[in-house]
């Protein structure tokens, strides 16, 4: 879990004062905070660690690193469930 995963910024928006992006990792799209990478914009590639972009990278670097992480089985953090803010109904 110590390695950051590269992905492409698809769109960005504001949520409660935080800069959030939708980031594409291979076939998965997840959200990531852009608060630590103010320079990142739509179309850029960013290195994301536990939901936070920590650096920008070029497309070639992103592609190569992503493949290597996939081979090393280091993408499992992307499998964590998506948390919705819709209250779940208690079981009857």
């Amino acid at each position, binding site marked *: 879990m110590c390695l950051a995963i590269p992905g492409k910024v698809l769109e960005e928006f504001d949520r409660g004062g935080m800069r959030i992006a939708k980031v594409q990792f291979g076939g998965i799209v997840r959200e990531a905070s852009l608060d630590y990478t103010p320079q990142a914009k739509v179309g850029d590639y960013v290195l994301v660690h536990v939901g936070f972009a920590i650096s920008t990278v070029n497309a070639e670097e992103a592609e190569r690193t992503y493949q290597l992480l996939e*081979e090393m089985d280091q993408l499992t953090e992307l499998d964590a469930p998506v948390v919705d803010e819709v209250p779940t109904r208690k079981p009857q």
Partner: protein
Amino acid sequence: MKYLDEYRNPRLAQSIVNEIRRIQTRPWVIMEVCGGQTHSIVKHGIDRLLPEGIELVHGPGCPVCVTPLENIDKAHAIAAQPNVIFCSFGDMLRVPGSNGDLFTLKSQGADIRVVYSPLDCLKIARVNPDKHIVFFAIGFETTAPANAMLAFRAKEEGAHNVSILVSHSLVPPSMTYILQSPQNRVQGFLGPGHVCTIMGYREYEPISERYNVPIVITGFEPLDLLQGTLMTVRQLEAGTATAENQYSRILDREGNVPARELVNSVFEVSDRKWRGVGWIPKSGYKLRWEYREHDAERIFHVKEIDTKEPAICISGQILKGIKKPHDCPAFGSQCTPLTPLGATMVSAEGACAAYYAYGRHLDKHRAEASSRAQVGGAA
């Protein structure tokens, strides 16, 4: 050179190995600090590709591995309480504590959730105002900005039902600790690339200077690791000792300034226990006083839990570069990823787990069988 075929650029890899061989005049012991580097080195057989006499030893940089048993037990005690939703990164759920792992506790009915980002805890808290949300904040400097942001946002938003159980470790003090050990063998370091993406590498410069040891901040791809090794050997052969940056396409000397600033406003440096190693002064983070209302240890009054590791486990010596997984009598037999006895086997980035995952325990069994056959043949 069978591993070279797997490289994306085998010719470049070979030329780096040749250059190391050309300049090397004597044996050197080099430690890679980061667990991701260890995993990549073992997967790609980089340690076996290097010229004889260049030995890579595996450092303490796996955050899951070095999370002390006491803190896993504290997590277990808090997660077992009613009205608690305990959140964690997925890797921590299968790490056994004294009373079993969090995954088993979850299967027994505790509300334990794997989160992708620490910020997910704020969403969970908003939907569950009658519950207390506790986040298990483990990691090195790479993870600290994410965990710090959770505490910062919880305080800003007045989320009184959110707290964090902090178990954060810092890389440079662990390197100093290794260098101060009377048994130390490490003569140069491959420094941790993603940790330095956040922190930069200024703080490694005084370590290089004081202990006369080259530190080359290195990525984790095969060519990065070979190039980092070459840069380290160059310094060792020239008798120089500075902090250098192999991973300049990702990071610079200053690191990520906004991330570092937030981390420093939320956390302060504290002593920290490392699993398999023991207490290392000023090697971790704790929450600053201003964040005490979000400190799970204060809220839940979990008492110190005295724990003991199995006597047979040598993970402490492996983490310091003194021994290798093969030196352990339990490696691959009593101790496997399914039944880990200590720090270096509990996560895929631990040296023992990486050796096991890529079949190196079989080398040990083969060597034992061959030595038995030789003894039998001689008798």
